[in-house]
C-alpha cells in the first residue's frame, strides 16, 4: 500500500469528523435535542414501569418458592419474543403513542429485574429475618423496613443492567416511528445514506447509557451507606455475580 492511500484516508477521516461536527451544530435544536430527550423519557419510563411490575412479582416469587420457576420461564419467554414483533402487535391498540414502545421495553426489563428482586430478598440472612419477627415487626413493616432495604444493592444492580439494555433497545422502536435517537440513525441517517446522524445517534445513545449507570451508582451509594466498605464481603461478590449473569442474559437476547 502506498503513502498516498494512507494520506487520503486520513483526509477522509478529517472530512467525516468535520461533517459530523457541522451537522451536529446545525441540527442541535432540532432534531437532536428533542430526540435525545424522547430517548431518555422512553427508557426511564420503561425501566420504572418494569420495576413497578417486577417488585410485586419478585415478592411473590421469593415468598412462594414454587411460583418462581414458572415465573422465571415466563419472563424469559417474553424476552425471547422479537421486539419488532411486539411493537407491531401493539400498534392496533396503542397506535403511535409512546406506550407502543414503553410496554414491550418494560416487559423486557422483567427478565433482568424479577430474578434480581427475588435474589435480593432471598439473600436476606435468615437470622436477620427471624430477629425482625422476634423484635415485633409485622409482615409489612418487616418487608419495608428490613427486607427491601437489605435487598436494595442487588435490585439496583439489576436496574443498572436493565437501564443500559433498555437505552440500547429503544432505538429499535424507530421502526414504528418512535425510538428517540433511533430515529436520527434510521430516518435522518440510514435512509438517506448519510453517516453523520448515525454517528451522532450512536455516540449520544452510549453517553446516555453511561449517564444512567452513573446516576444509579450514585443513588445506590446514597441509599445504602451501610454497604460501603463491604467490597470483599459475600454480598458484593454476589451482586457482581448476579449483574454479570444478567449482562450475559441481555446480550444473548438482543443478538
Amino acid at each position, binding site marked *: 500500500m502506498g503513502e498516498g492511500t494512507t494520506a487520503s484516508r486520513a483526509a477522509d477521516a478529517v472530512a467525516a469528523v468535520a461533517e459530523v461536527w457541522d451537522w451536529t451544530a446545525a441540527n442541535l435544536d432540532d432534531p437532536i435535542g428533542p430526540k435525545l430527550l424522547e430517548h431518555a423519557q422512553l427508557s426511564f419510563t420503561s425501566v420504572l414501569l418494569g420495576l413497578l411490575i417486577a417488585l410485586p412479582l419478585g415478592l411473590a416469587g421469593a415468598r412462594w418458592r414454587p411460583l418462581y420457576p414458572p415465573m422465571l420461564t415466563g419472563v424469559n419467554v417474553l424476552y425471547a419474543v422479537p421486539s419488532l414483533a411486539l411493537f407491531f402487535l401493539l400498534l392496533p391498540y396503542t397506535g403511535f403513542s409512546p406506550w407502543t414502545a414503553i410496554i414491550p421495553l418494560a416487559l423486557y426489563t422483567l427478565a433482568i429485574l424479577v430474578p434480581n428482586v427475588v435474589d435480593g430478598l432471598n439473600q436476606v440472612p435468615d437470622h*436477620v429475618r427471624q*430477629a425482625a*419477627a*422476634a*423484635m*415485633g415487626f409485622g409482615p409489612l413493616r418487616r418487608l419495608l423496613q*428490613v427486607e427491601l*432495604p437489605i435487598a436494595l444493592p442487588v435490585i439496583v444492580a439489576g436496574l443498572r443492567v436493565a437501564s443500559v439494555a433498555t437505552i440500547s433497545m429503544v432505538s429499535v422502536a424507530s421502526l414504528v416511528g418512535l425510538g428517540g435517537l433511533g430515529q436520527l440513525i434510521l430516518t435522518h441517517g440510514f435512509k438517506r445514506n448519510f453517516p453523520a446522524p448515525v454517528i451522532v445517534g450512536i455516540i449520544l445513545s452510549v453517553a446516555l447509557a453511561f449517564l444512567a449507570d452513573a446516576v444509579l451508582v450514585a443513588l445506590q451509594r446514597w441509599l445504602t*451507606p*451501610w454497604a460501603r466498605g463491604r467490597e470483599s464481603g459475600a454480598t458484593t461478590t454476589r451482586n457482581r455475580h448476579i449483574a454479570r449473569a444478567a449482562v450475559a442474559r441481555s446480550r444473548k437476547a438482543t443478538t
Partner: protein
Amino acid sequence: MITFEGAGKRYPDGTVAVDQLDLKIPSGRTTVLVGSSGSGKTTALRMINRMVEPTQGTVAIDGTDVRSRDPVLLRRSIGYVIQQAGLFPHRTAVDNIATVPLLLGWPKARARARARELMELVGLEPGQGRRYPHQLSGGQQQRVGVARALAADPPILLMDEPFSAVDPLVRAGLQDELLRLQAELHKTIVFVTHDIDEAVKLGDTIAVLRPGGRLAQVDTPERLLAEPVDEFVAGFIGYDRGVRRLSFFPARDLPLRSDIVLSAETTAEQARSVAAASGQPWLFVVDKDRRPIGWIGSAGLAGEEGPRPLGTMGVIGYGHGFTVSTDSLRAALDAAVLSPAGGAVGVDTDGTVIGVVTQSDLGAAIWPLGDAGGVLAATSDNG
C-alpha cells in the same frame, strides 16, 4: 413466671419437636434449656414469644396464656437475642438497639438516648454507635444484640445460643458480662445452649432436654452435677462432672503454705535447710515484689554451691496460679494439674503470691467433697 403445661409441638410430617413439656420458669432468675440438637430446646423457647405455636398444651406468662395475646405486641414486650446476633446490616449499632423502642412509638431522640445508655451498660464505646454491624467484631455484635433485646426494658429475655458463634475467649467475656448484667437487672432469662459448661456457669436452674423434646431433669447446676437422674443426663453432662462440680466450692479455704515460698535472693544453702525442715520436695520462688517466678526441686538444689541465690538458677514454670479470694477449687485443681511440681500457686487479686497449696493438701481438701456427694466414686463407675 413462665409456665409450660403439657406443651408440645408436632409438625405436620409427624416430627415431634417438643413432647409434653411441663416446666416452671421463675421470675428474675436465669433458666437454661440445654440439650443436643433435636432436643427441641429452641422450639420450646420460641413457644414463649409465639414464634412457634404449640400443637398441644399451653404456655403462659404470669398466668396468661400467650395465645390470648397479639403475637406482634407480645414480642415487643419480650427481649430476644439470636445466634449470630441477627443485627440489621443496614442500620447503625445505635439504630439497631433503638429498634423496639421505635416500634413502640417512642420519639426518635428518646429512643436514641436510651440506646446510648444501653451501649454503656453492655460495655460498648460511644464511638461504636455510628458503626454498621459489619464494622464490629463478633463479640461487639453480640453486645449490640443483647443491648437491642434490653432496649425497651422487657421483664423477660429469651436468648437462643447467643454466644455460640464467637471464639471461646470472647464467649467467656460475654458470659461474665451477662452474669454482671443479670446481678443488676434481675430479668427472667431463658437461655438456650448445647454447651453444658455455659449452662452451669450462667444458670440458676438448668433444664436438660433429651432428643425427641422430652424433659430429662430440672435442677440447680450443683445438684445436676452431683445427682444426674439417669445415664442420659450423666452422659450429657460428661464424665468430668466431678471435676466440674468443684466450681461450686471456693478456693479460699485451702491451706496455703508460705513457709516454702522463697525470694529470689535466698541462697541455695538457706533453701536446702527450708526443704529439709518442711519435708517438701518443691519450693516456690518469687521476685522482690512477691510475684511468681517458678518452682525449684530439692533434687536440683542439691548440686548447687551454697551461696548461689535462687534467682540465678533454672526454675520450672508454674503454669498458672489461682486467685485465692475469687476462684473455685476447680481453678486451683487445674493450676495444680498444669504445674510440674503438682502444687498450685495462690495469688492475691493484684497478682502477688499469698502461698502455695501442695498436692497432698489439695487432695485432702477435694476428696471429702467427692465422698459426700458420691460424685467422684460415681464418676469412676460411669467411666
